[in-house]
């Protein structure tokens, strides 16, 4: 008796809730999908091939590829030890370090660029002595772009790999220790090989983020064809001069991003399991 009334009441409440959820779902999907549809609808298909053949555009693509791959490699080298430290070692200030590691994810990239200038610019904390001692300046150089882009994309790798470490059964590492493996051997022969999926996912995410980075890069390293102008910068600049070129470049970025996501699939991203 009470059970029937309860079900009946729940049903009457359920209907509007279900409708709201359906609307939210439809709106959510539309928000994500429509921009892509719009981009495809506006693509000047007949101009795609000649535009992609344009030397300046190819130069931009080449530089973007170089910068993003260099940045992904740098993220891997800098990020894995950080991820390990966060996941496997307890020390005072760990929460602070973790916050620091994800900060670039939530910081507007432009602010990141300003902060990078404050540190590595010609008048920066490190940049000024660096120039005085070695004559090297980072702003307006390809290396500067790599640093700016890595600043923004590194957290993606750290977060992914740290999650990988945490998902790893620590007892397997203990088993290795009882078999005589030093901490280093455990890392090299057990943890890292078992982390390959996380490393792949983290590197790919960092790479994809690096490929699309705009704000920090343009703020810190500026814009010069062949040296610092990556695809996102070119998209922004071409948007008003030659919107077709901007759309074609956007399409290239979109295709690469989709390829990465599809390549990783849910398995590596750790969702949908």
């Amino acid at each position, binding site marked *: 008796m009470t059970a029937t009334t309860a079900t009946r009441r729940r049903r009457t409440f359920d209907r509007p809730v279900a409708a709201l959820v359906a609307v939210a779902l439809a709106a959510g999907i539309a928000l994500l999908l429509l921009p892509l549809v719009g981009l495809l609808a506006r693509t000047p298909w007949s101009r795609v091939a000649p535009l992609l053949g344009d030397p300046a555009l190819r130069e931009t693509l080449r530089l973007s590829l170089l910068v993003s791959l260099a940045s992904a490699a740098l993220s891997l080298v800098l990020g894995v030890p950080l991820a390990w430290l966060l996941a496997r070692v307890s020390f005072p200030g760990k929460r602070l370090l973790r916050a620091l590691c994800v900060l670039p994810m939530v910081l507007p990239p432009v602010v990141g660029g300003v902060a990078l200038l404050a540190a590595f610019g010609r008048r920066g904390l490190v940049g000024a002595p660096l120039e005085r001692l070695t004559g090297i300046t980072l702003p307006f150089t390809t290396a500067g772009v790599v640093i700016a882009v890595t600043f923004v994309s590194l957290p993606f790798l750290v977060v992914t790999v740290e999650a990988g470490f945490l998902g790893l*059964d620590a*007892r*397997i590492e*203990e*088993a*290795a*220790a*009882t*078999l*005589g*493996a*030093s*901490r280093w*051997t455990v890392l090299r*022969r*057990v943890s890292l*090989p*078992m982390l*390959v999926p996380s490393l792949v996912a983290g590197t790919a995410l960092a790479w994809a983020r690096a490929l699309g980075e705009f704000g920090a890069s343009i703020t810190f390293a500026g814009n010069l064809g062949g040296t610092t102008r990556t695809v996102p910068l070119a998209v922004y600049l071409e948007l008003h001069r030659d919107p077709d070129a901007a759309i074609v470049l956007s399409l290239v970025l979109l295709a690469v991003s989709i390829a990465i996501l599809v390549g990783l699939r849910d398995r590596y991203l750790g969702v949908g399991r």
Partner: protein
Amino acid sequence: MSLAVEVTARRGDFVLDAHVEVADGEVLALLGPNGAGKTSLLRIVAGLERPDTGRVEIGGLVVDDLGAGSHVPAAERRVGMVFQDHLLFPHLDLTDNVAFGPRSRGTGRREAARVALDWLERVGLAERAGEQPSALSGGQAQRVALARALAGDPAVLLLDEPLAALDVETRQEVRGLLREHLRAFAGPVVLVTHDPLEALTLADRLVVLEDGRVTQAGTPAEVARHPRSAWVARLVGVNLLRGEAAGTEVTVGRATLTTAEPAYGPVDVLFHPHAVALHRTEPGGSPRNTWRAVVDGMDVEGARVRVHLDGPLAVVAEVTPAAVAELGLADGVEVWAAVKAVELQVHPR
């Protein structure tokens, strides 16, 4: 003593305070309820946890001495450890899994692979050497885990509930293999378990750990016969007889028992005290095993009374206080004891 542990360790409210010594070639079963500190003790010996006070000595080498502030990390102790859920390295094939210990301790790649194959052979899995652990059944994985622990040539072998994760049939098969390798192992062996059968059939000596403290120690027969706590009585207080089987007949000393399942050679015969029925006159009917015995002491445990019997077989019977009154049981009283053949568990030794 080639393994000596005398430590205390505080884990929140729980305090482990234990003193355990194991001789070379001796198999010690560490028995106790969940949360008694068995695994902690094992991990302290392995160097995976640190004690708060005390010392640990393996093969004459002091590996923990809180007085002197010394601690040898796990990787530098010569321990071999088998875990409940095997913990094989999922990304390495069986050879590399077993070769991991020798290689970590400095053996060359080729020699380590040879040692690994040799150990896989001994646990009957040589033909699977190139496969990944994921291709193995639970029992097979545990056999590889044993091989992996032994391949590193450890000074002490530690087993943490090695059979607990296996199903009943597999358990019997792996238990047989374990017994063989534990006997063959030259150093001290510590086996953590909460399964009395495992403890009684694999160990030379039992140490009962309850709430962080050793409550009883002795041979399996002693502990089974004179359990000192309710927990031990309930779990270990079984009748354990050693005999020689020939088909469904087992000769134990002067007596012969009839069993339901045939076996051959040296065996352990186990049956629970409550399977032993007591009568004032010779019972008729189905029990295949009946004998005359003399009451040799009684322990009252709540609603049960453990009656110690002397005679051709030294066993314990468990009856209700009402039955004690009805049968007029007292020290020196003669009774007939009866056990059905199907109640006897026979385990080859």
